[in-house]
């Protein structure tokens, strides 16, 4: 290699550029000063200065999930790295591809309890897909490229590179290792054909089939989702989506049954329970979806398509496992289906659809409107009416508002919906939203928030203002940690222990103090005007929507209950006490 030796920090920046990175989210500190210096001297990679390292990771998640690219984070050693842990865990649970660069004390000080030293690879081993402590500059470019490869291959996830300061400063020549084959990690992409054939044969005989699709479809990419939509339409089977899978199948399609799971649609959960052939594509039988395992879809044969073999037969035994990338698998399914000119059992399917339509007829999202109090559901209906023809992206925080957003906002395309599914991280939504906005500067990006969650990363308002990121924060302010209150009502005799959001700030003034705009809606009649103003304002806006304090989120499958025992509203709730086994579940 005749290349000129450059510093480790410069090697990293070159590798980022060769990986197509255009933006990173970070926060500086002593152990990453050489890297910040290298960033200063170039203009290909943009740096967004966050206000807390957790937010850097969520922002990178929003960026990654809305673009399909790997999100990149840069933080310092010690507290910088420990602050990133929640975000990394979040990304691991939701299979979001990230590369997180952490500074580390120089190699000769590692293990000495040096200033701002933490055992970062030790701490993050269980919350990353993989991590590296790079001890020598010779390994640096190979490891940076490898980190990107690992993050995006197979089931995506966060990968961390711990970078001692002396390694950032040492000199070596840069070699572009992008595209190199990995020695051990080469996940299967293309499925075993005979498994796909078996799956198609089972589908062809189905009388009560159901597609159950999840976040893996989104990860497989827009093209894979498009093929999936074509395939589902070809079969004419109903299709339900998980929280993470919203948008992978168009909500407005007549075949869509909407979301499944704890706060999913009545028709979806009943269809899950009663189906005879379940086609799980890129979902993981999460406990929020299955409810009580021994009562989960008792009469169905199950097909499970997943790129991660360890997802298969983890909690639910399946009949036909198919390991592979959703895009490849669906393409193969489609080919076989067409080649064999599959004819489904039309009569049985018509009966199945009749049944589904009866369930749909229960209109499970209905709520009691009110003249003077804003119902949270109504607020979201008005929000959706105002944005549905626009190019919009939604993120959420965690709580009742998140579930209502999943129920009342409709997604026609993948990559438009960012929510913390697996970890349920309050404070995710605001940074995730601006991560999206950075990638899509012209689009309308809204964080549907709760008044409690938004305070968990409220400092990020400063980031919005600094970069003029016109994110809209739509706070569904019910003055309660509503989801906690709802569980206390259901499970703990209405003893509302510590779930009241006391001493709330004035969100309008708070927004203004940060240099953003603040708006408030207090009555149903205010809503449309306030929403319009929020959209019209060019910069970041925080909207305090004063919603009903008492409203609970339905439908709901209480913990420990099977799918066909959903609560549809407050009256059901008092009629059915939760079992002892249900009480211990979360």
């Amino acid at each position, binding site marked *: 290699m005749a290349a000129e030796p450059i510093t480790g920090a410069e090697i990293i920046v070159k590798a980022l550029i060769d990986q197509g990175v255009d933006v990173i989210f970070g926060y500086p500190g002593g152990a990453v000063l050489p890297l910040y210096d290298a960033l200063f001297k170039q203009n290909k990679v943009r740096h967004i200065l966050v206000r807390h390292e957790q937010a850097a990771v969520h922002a990178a998640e929003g960026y990654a999930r809305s673009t399909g690219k790997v999100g990149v984070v840069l933080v310092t050693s010690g507290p910088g790295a420990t602050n990133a842990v929640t975000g990394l865990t979040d990304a691991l649970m939701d299979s979001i591809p990230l590369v997180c660069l952490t500074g580390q004390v120089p190699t000769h000080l590692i293990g000495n309890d040096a200033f701002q030293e933490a055992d970062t*690879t*030790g701490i993050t*081993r*269980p919350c990353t*897909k*993989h*991590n590296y*402590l790079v*001890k020598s500059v010779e390994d640096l470019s190979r490891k940076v490229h490898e980190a990107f490869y*690992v993050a995006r291959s*197979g*089931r995506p996830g966060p990968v961390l590179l711990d970078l001692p300061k002396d390694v950032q400063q040492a000199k070596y020549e840069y070699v572009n290792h992008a595209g190199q084959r990995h*020695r*051990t*990690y080469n*996940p299967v992409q293309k499925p075993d054909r005979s498994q796909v054939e078996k799956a198609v044969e089972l589908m062809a005989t189905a009388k009560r089939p159901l597609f159950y699709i999840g976040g893996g479809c989104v990860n497989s990419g827009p093209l894979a989702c498009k093929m999936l939509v074509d395939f589902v339409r070809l079969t004419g089977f109903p299709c339900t989506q998980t929280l993470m899978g919203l948008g992978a199948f168009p909500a407005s399609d007549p075949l869509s049954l909407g979301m499944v799971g704890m706060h999913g649609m009545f028709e979806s959960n009943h269809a899950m329970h009663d189906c005879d052939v379940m086609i799980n594509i890129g979902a993981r039988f999460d406990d929020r979806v299955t409810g009580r*395992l*021994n009562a989960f879809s008792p009469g169905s044969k199950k097909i499970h398509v997943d790129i*991660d*073999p*360890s997802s*298969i*037969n*983890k909690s639910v*035994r399946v009949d036909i496992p198919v390991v592979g990338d959703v895009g490849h698998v669906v393409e193969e399914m489609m080919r076989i289906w067409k080649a064999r000119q599959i004819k489904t059992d039309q009569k049985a399917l018509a009966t199945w659809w009749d049944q589904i339509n009866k369930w749909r007829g229960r209109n499970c999202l209905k709520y009691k409107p009110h003249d003077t109090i804003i119902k949270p559901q109504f607020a979201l209906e008005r929000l959706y009416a105002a944005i549905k023809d626009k190019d919009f992206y939604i993120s959420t925080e965690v709580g009742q508002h998140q579930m209502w957003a999943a129920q009342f906002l409709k997604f026609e395309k993948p990559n438009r919906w960012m929510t913390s599914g697996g970890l349920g991280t309050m404070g995710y939504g605001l940074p995730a939203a601006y991560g999206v906005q950075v990638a899509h500067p012209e689009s309308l990006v809204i964080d549907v928030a709760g008044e409690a969650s938004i305070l968990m990363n409220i400092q990020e308002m400063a980031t919005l203002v600094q970069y003029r990121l016109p994110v809209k924060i739509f706070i569904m302010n019910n003055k309660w940690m509503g989801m906690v209150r709802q569980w206390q009502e259901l499970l703990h005799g209405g003893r509302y222990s510590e779930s009241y959001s006391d001493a709330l700030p004035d969100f309008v003034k708070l927004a203004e103090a940060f240099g953003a705009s603040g708006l408030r809606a207090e009555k149903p009649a205010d809503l449309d005007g306030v929403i319009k103003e929020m959209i019209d304002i060019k910069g970041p806006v925080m909207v305090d929507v004063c919603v009903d304090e008492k409203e609970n989120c339905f439908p709901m499958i209480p913990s420990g209950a099977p799918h066909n025992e959903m609560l549809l509203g407050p009256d059901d709730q008092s009629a059915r006490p939760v079992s002892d086994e249900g009480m211990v579940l979360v």
Partner: protein
Amino acid sequence: MKDAMIERHTMSVVVDNEAGVLARVIGLFSGRGYNIESLTVAEVDADQHVSRITVVTSGTPMIIEQIKNQLQRLVPVHSVTDLTVEGPSLEREMALVKVASTGEKRVEALRIADIFRARVVDATIESFVFEMTGSTEKLNAFIGLMKPLGLADVSRTGIVAMKRGSEAN
């Protein structure tokens, strides 16, 4: 779920011998609540920096399948072989057994060691250290017999295992 049987499996895991790889494997077992009955590790190919981990674990068939899949997806893992399923295989363990006694007990310890083909690798007037290789059961039996004869200390390697026949894994 039906009451599933708990099975004992021996797995051979070939890994890149890089920093932290053992912590990754152990962390996987502790983090997901899997059992480790025995675990051994050593580099087996110095040029390629490849190590072999032999782990004996137990669980329901579903858990065993999970363990294999979870191990398989760790980035530095080359291969996972379930020797219990892909048998027949060999399992060996080595122990150093210290017996401190005098008189008749000392003579009896030596006699039994001879029957078990244990070697004396250290001796004083009051003690022996025996080296013994064999199956776990054989080691257990030997150590059991030494108890009344002045058993003072035991150090065991844990199980190493390999497929029988010409095929490698």
